[in-house]
């Protein structure tokens, strides 16, 4: 419907590299926040936000690959299903260690795997039962769901300072910030391609939007963590500042890319007044 129908999307960075970048970068960002516990501080929480940005870029790339086939329902639908699966998988993965006695460190990995399984199932059903016949649907759904789960864990970690469910429950869930994480995370994944689609869509421009979008949500996560008791104000402010700096850099780059990809950029001046028209 609203997508640029017709064939797979090409681009500078190959899908395999994107997967490695997103999965490794995302998980690394999330696990590096364990420095908080190691050094008894909360200052490293912003690394969770950085991890979320890596995952968002991966998710946005998967969305642009699958949506270039034309879903018929608009791009936002696939982002919302990603985060719908992501939230269920995230909470399951982070809670399982608490319930079953597995080490807490396994939480994000479990979430990631569960999200991938749900994604695979939804992808299979879309092709086999609903007959969407998009060749890369299963693979893309696995990627999008996995990226969705990582974005949510990353942002939650940035707010709570730890991916332990004992910290996330009071800081992210009970405060209601989970709604921000949910819809904001979905935006980072669905918005870039929705904003840039068309025959002139370029990978670097679309993924630049994903970075700037992720950075904006990261800045908001920093604000949110100011309201969390277990976090000191410096950590929240640092998350916000890092997010805003990344946003400024990538938004400028997006403007540059938009000018590069357009045929002509010209000022039209103000609208003519009624006297001038006569």
């Amino acid at each position, binding site marked *: 419907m609203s997508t640029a129908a017709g064939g797979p999307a090409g681009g500078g960075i190959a899908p395999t590299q994107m997967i490695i970048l997103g999965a490794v970068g995302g998980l690394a960002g999330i696990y590096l926040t364990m420095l908080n516990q190691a050094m008894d501080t909360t200052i490293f929480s912003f690394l969770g936000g950085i991890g979320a940005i890596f995952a968002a870029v991966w998710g946005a790339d998967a969305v642009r690959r699958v949506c270039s086939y034309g879903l018929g*329902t608009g791009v936002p639908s696939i982002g919302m299903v990603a985060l*719908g699966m992501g939230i269920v998988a995230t*909470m399951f993965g982070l809670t399982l260690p608490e319930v079953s006695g597995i080490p807490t460190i396994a939480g994000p990995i479990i979430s990631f795997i569960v999200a991938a399984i749900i994604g695979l199932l939804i992808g299979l*059903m*879309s092709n086999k039962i609903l007959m969407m016949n998009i060749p890369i649907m299963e693979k893309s759904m696995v990627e999008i769901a996995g990226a969705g789960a990582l974005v949510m864990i990353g942002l939650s970690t940035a707010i709570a300072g730890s991916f332990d469910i004992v910290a996330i429950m009071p800081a992210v*869930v009970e405060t209601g910030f*989970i709604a921000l994480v*949910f819809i904001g995370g979905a935006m980072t994944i669905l918005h870039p391609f929705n904003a840039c689609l068309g025959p002139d869509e370029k990978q670097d421009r679309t993924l630049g939007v994903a970075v700037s979008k992720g950075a904006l949500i990261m800045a908001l996560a920093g604000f949110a963590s100011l309201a969390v008791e277990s976090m000191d104000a410096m950590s929240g402010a640092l998350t916000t500042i890092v997010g805003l700096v990344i946003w400024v850099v990538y938004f400028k780059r997006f403007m540059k890319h938009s000018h590069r990809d357009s045929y002509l950029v010209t000022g039209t001046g103000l609208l003519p007044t009624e006297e001038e028209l006569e």
Partner: protein
Amino acid sequence: MIDIMTIILITLGGILIGVGVHFIPVGGAPAAMAQATGVGTGTVQLAAGAGLTGLISAGFMYNHLAISGTFTGLDYLMVVASGAVGSMIMITVTMFVGQLVYVYGVGVPPVSAKVKKDPITGDVQDLYVSRGTEGHGVPTVSFVSGTIGGLLGGLGGSMIYVQLMQIVGDPSNSGAVALAGIFATGVFYVNSVLASYNIGGTIEGFHDPKFKRVPKAIVSCLIASLLCAIIAVPIMGGVV
């Protein structure tokens, strides 16, 4: 530990959402330009808008009734009815205001291009379809269909929410409320997107030939919701 009945009811809620989406007259981008029958936005947005309103009204009713400590079968019915009515109000208001814009703003008569006569009022339809379009506005049959869609969606969403809340059984626990709410939202999105993939763009309501695809959506929503329910139930029991 895991209650089979809870899982069955959550799955049923998911199926109701998936079926409900098929009733909602979704016109997508063409309808935004008055070139297709229905409201001019995507399936997911419409279904989620109505569904989330249903969740809020169900949540309000649940909090009101369950805070006393007892939660009877009648209370259960009250909560899901409240959710259904909330969704119906949301979707009918959306359709009605959209209708005002189509009729008085764009200047087109509400008409369906899929049937020759409106199955409810019997009014002639095909004469009024503008050339080059697939109908416009929200004709009576689509309006009624959309209201049924809101009913089913709201019912399904609030069933999921109440079941999750009942696992904890403490409406004053804000963690449980937030978790149940966000889980219900997640399951809602998964099911409404699956349904919208089944529809593939636009649908006018239960009189649309695409409505015959419902069985496929029921199967997929059953599998997806079952998986979500199996995952959700232990978490609600374990975390709060």
